[in-house]
């Protein structure tokens, strides 16, 4: 007994070790065995875990909320600056993406017929309120001459009004002085589709003269029996000697027919939004002056 009493600590330790080895051996052979031991242990430990978590969490919060607040204001300002810089970067990237799309479309259009297009940026507009003109940054050095057609992928923009070596003035087609011959795309196609080739029908193609009103376009001299309806697309006829045939001018929005008149009149919404023009294409065919026709008719 004296011996047990003297070595009780070592004996207890040995027993505990034996018990642990027994438990390990039992769990290793079958993990589901002795689940009761787990549950008992967890039930005993749980209150301590919770209380420790709360206390440690409280201490941690105390440090993070109050003690570490010393540099918070400075850090906040830095973060604000970073957010602002990132926002500017995002805005720049969005702008770049939009510009990329626009330029890609323009590049594709550049490779389409008619050939010989010169791209020019818009650098100004009319100084007065009575005329609709744009100033572009390409002139005679780029091969641009007076009366050359100015177009965009969307349709006709206008013609070159005057030109100097490094810049040119574009008269927009909505300018009151601008008049050019056009034809209605749908009715033309319909007549071609018939294929009967009767002279009367061929002569009766739905043509007209478009002139600018300052804000939009008006098409006049449309024969009374012409098949023109709202929604019809109007294209250049190629007869004026300025614009090549087939360029989109706009869409008919309204038809005016008076019984006592010889012709009908149509309001046309231009295909190009003139408020948003940043760059244009000038069709450069040769170096002749615009007083001579650049393109043949059909």
């Amino acid at each position, binding site marked *: 007994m004296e011996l047990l009493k003297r070595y009780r600590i070592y004996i207890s330790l040995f027993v505990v070790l034996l018990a642990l080895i027994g438990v390990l051996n039992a769990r290793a052979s079958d993990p589901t065995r002795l689940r009761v031991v787990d549950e008992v242990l967890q039930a005993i430990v749980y209150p301590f875990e919770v209380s420790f978590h709360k206390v440690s969490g409280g201490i941690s919060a105390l440090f993070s909320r109050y003690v570490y607040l010393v540099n918070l204001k400075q850090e906040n300002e830095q973060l604000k600056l970073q957010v602002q810089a990132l926002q500017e970067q995002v805005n720049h990237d969005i702008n770049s993406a939009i510009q990329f799309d626009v330029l890609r479309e323009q590049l594709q259009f550049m490779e389409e017929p008619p050939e010989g297009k010169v791209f020019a940026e818009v650098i*100004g*507009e*009319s*100084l*007065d*309120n*009575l*005329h609709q*003109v744009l*100033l572009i940054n390409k002139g005679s050095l780029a091969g641009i001459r007076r009366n050359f057609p100015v177009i965009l992928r969307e349709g006709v923009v206008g013609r070159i*009004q*005057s030109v100097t070596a490094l810049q040119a*003035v574009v*008269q927009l087609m909505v300018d*009151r*002085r601008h008049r050019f011959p056009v034809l209605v795309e749908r009715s033309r196609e319909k007549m071609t589709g018939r294929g009967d080739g009767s002279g009367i029908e061929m002569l009766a193609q739905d043509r007209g003269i478009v002139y600018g009103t300052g804000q939009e376009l008006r098409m006049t001299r449309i024969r009374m029996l012409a098949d023109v309806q709202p929604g019809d697309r109007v294209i250049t006829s190629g007869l004026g000697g300025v614009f090549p045939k087939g360029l989109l001018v706009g869409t008919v929005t309204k038809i005016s027919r008076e019984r006592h008149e010889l012709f009908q009149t149509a309001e046309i919404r231009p295909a190009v939004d003139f408020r948003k023009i940043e760059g244009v294409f000038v069709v450069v065919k040769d170096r002749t002056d615009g007083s001579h026709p650049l393109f043949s008719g059909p």
Partner: protein
Amino acid sequence: MTRLAYVGVGLAMLWLQVSLAPYLAIGGIKPNFLLLSVLVLQVRWLDPWAFLFAAVAGLAVDTFSHGMLGAYAASYVATAVLGRRLALMIYENSRPFTVLLVAGLTVLEGLIALAVLNLLDEQVPWFTWLFTRVLPQAAYHALLCPFALWGVERLERLLKVVPPRS
């Protein structure tokens, strides 16, 4: 020295007209800084050199609008001459009077310009343009005239110019 001032003012107004005026358009109506400066300087200084300034300013507007040189130049000079006569007859050195005179002269210039453009076979829609372009621009110039006067007064102090009717 005032001749140099005309050159400086002209270049500054041309630059403002090309770069700033499109952004100040209200309902499609832009202020005409060149015309405004012509009128204010003529009414303030009553200087014969203002006629030349008006002609050059008009030519600049001709170049960057319809392209027929001389139309606006003629209307600007005619308005400057009439403005000088009016100012000599009835000028009163007060801001409200100057504002009224500048607005009235803007309407006058608009009418002369429409007449000249009509002569040049532009088939001008008189009444439409008078009510939708000329009168709104005159109102716009009346609003901007106090600022233009302030600028001219600063210029007078800088150049030590004494206006004849001050």
